[in-house]
């Protein structure tokens, strides 16, 4: 008898890797163009997309490198197709220049970064969360980034769909930060039916072509440049531009251009922010973590709660824009805050920025390519309690 392929209520059920769940999510979200260059530990995403996209009339291209890959998906999206690429640290570094281009021309794209150890070629097969800051500040200039991070296989699927929705809603690149552990580990995944998916489609202009102003922001502060091929003609440039898309040197227009790509995200941060609280009601100690470190933190909290240590967790699903208010509120009555991450301390910086000095902020960091273990978090909390 074969293993069940659907749940009792008819949803397709699989036992897959994070990378495979990402492919399922992207296809469900309506991604129809993928350009990429395979790199461990993200290669299974390219592999899966190359298999799935042709079946549904989509296009997969393996490009010559990551610079070409990101350029291709910006082009794909400018032509109206929901577009994605997947990479890891070294490739993410190569993509930075064009990611900046996508910010300024306001083209929605999804970039999956399955983080591995760095810098440089680093640790291809080992995990790390050391691109946390690169996802925010990777390309030069002033801009605001959206980066989200799943911690389970089901969440990889759901949040890949979220990534496409956010990209379309705010007309901007969205970075999905995974790490090697999440990308490669396998768990049960339950797929949604098409009718259960809430998908955001490209916002199309409603004015005649001759009245069209591509970067005139709409009521929600977001401008949605029209897909090429619809008859709307406008300039697309990486130079600071006015609302028509042509370069400008005028002070007010420069400010307005920069502020629009920041404000469209900052103003809607409440809508973007997602986090999950775990045992926070009565906690005296707060752990902040995301991705695989959050899994270790949950395990650690279960153990500590059994010993009546009042510790809780805020698991960040949105990393950027940084969910400062939720953290401030939660940390207010705590004695100490622990930031658990698989790097030499990156997420701890924005935490330090938002919390008052009276709260101790302690980093629990691991950076040897192995996942942070629950015991390491428990040890850090105990040291603080008995200090």
């Amino acid at each position, binding site marked *: 008898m074969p293993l069940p392929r659907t749940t009792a209520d008819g949803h397709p059920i699989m*036992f897959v890797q994070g990378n495979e769940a990402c492919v399922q999510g992207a296809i469900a979200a309506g991604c129809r163009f993928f350009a990429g260059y395979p790199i461990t530990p993200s290669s299974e995403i390219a592999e899966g997309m190359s298999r799935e996209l042709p079946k549904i009339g989509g296009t997969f291209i393996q490009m010559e490198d990551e610079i070409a890959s990101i350029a291709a998906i910006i082009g794909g999206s400018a032509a109206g197709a929901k577009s994605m690429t997947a990479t890891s640290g070294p490739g993410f570094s190569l993509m930075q220049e064009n990611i900046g281009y996508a910010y300024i021309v306001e083209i929605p794209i999804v970039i999956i970064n399955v983080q591995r150890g760095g810098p440089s070629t680093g640790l291809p097969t080992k995990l790390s969360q050391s691109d946390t800051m690169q996802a925010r500040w990777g390309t030069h200039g002033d801009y605001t980034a959206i980066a989200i991070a799943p911690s389970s296989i089901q969440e990889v699927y759901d949040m890949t769909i979220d990534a496409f929705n956010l990209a379309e809603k705010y007309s901007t690149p969205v970075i999905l930060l995974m790490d090697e552990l999440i990308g490669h580990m396998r768990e049960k995944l339950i797929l949604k039916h098409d009718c259960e998916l809430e998908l955001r489609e490209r916002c199309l202009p409603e004015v005649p072509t001759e009245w069209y102003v591509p970067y005139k922001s709409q009521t929600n502060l977001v401008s949605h440049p029209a897909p090429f091929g619809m008859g709307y003609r406008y300039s697309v440039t990486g130079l600071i531009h006015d609302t028509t898309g042509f370069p400008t040197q005028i002070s007010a227009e420069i400010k307005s251009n920069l502020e629009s790509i920041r404000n469209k995200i900052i103003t809607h941060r409440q809508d973007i922010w997602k986090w999950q609280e775990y045992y926070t009601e009565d906690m005296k100690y707060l752990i902040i973590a995301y991705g695989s470190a959050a*899994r270790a933190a949950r395990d650690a909290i279960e153990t500590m709660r059994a010993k009546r240590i009042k510790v809780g967790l805020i698991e960040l699903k949105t990393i950027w824009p940084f969910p400062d208010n939720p953290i401030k509120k939660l940390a207010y009555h705590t004695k100490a805050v622990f930031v658990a991450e698989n790097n030499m301390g990156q997420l701890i910086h924005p935490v330090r920025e938002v919390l008052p000095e009276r709260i101790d902020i302690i980093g629990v960091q691991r950076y040897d390519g192995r996942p942070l273990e629950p015991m390491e978090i428990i040890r850090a909390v105990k040291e603080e309690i008995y200090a």
Partner: protein
Amino acid sequence: MSTKSVKNSKIMNNNKNGILPDKIDRFEVRIAGAGGQGIISMGMLLAKAISLGDKKNASQSQSYGPEARGGATLADVIISDKTIYFPECITPDILIALTPGAYEYYAASVKPNGIIIADSNAVETVVGSVMTVEVPILKTCLDKFLNPIVANMVTLGFLTEFTGIVSKKSIKSAVEDRFEKSKFLESNLKALKAGFELGKKFKSEGLTQIEPGICLNL
């Protein structure tokens, strides 16, 4: 300790869930060997069979090096009735070691009441005193199939029959799923069956402890 029969150990009981406790808080299985031996496939099939077939929670994670063949490779399977958060083994309940390196490196991490299933060639110097069952896995592959490539299926079959942590029905379905419409289905099923038989033999004939920890089917 002198030579003694370990026939009455928990292995020999015919529980429905094998050696799994009735309420599974967290049960850890670590499969270790060399790249190319099918270690990760084994972990994946085991976890999939338990998760989808036996309706328990299971997760599988892995660790491997940049080499395509030969590097140290590891697959961790966690089984639980609860949600599994940390997906890697901390102190395994079962260690499967197919190479001397795997045994030497991980034997000490196994729980005191755990079990090590080692290929006959894997134990060079005994580490600790955890119950270690030496099984002629690679020898069976070479004798029966003239090919070491099915070692993972023989191991999976042995593990299933000997420990009962996964049902035979589910593991067979997982293998059939994996090799659906493939010309390799038959050879893999044959190897899995050979593993079942090996497990049955070890269970029915019992084990003899020849030195602390080391148990053989003499």
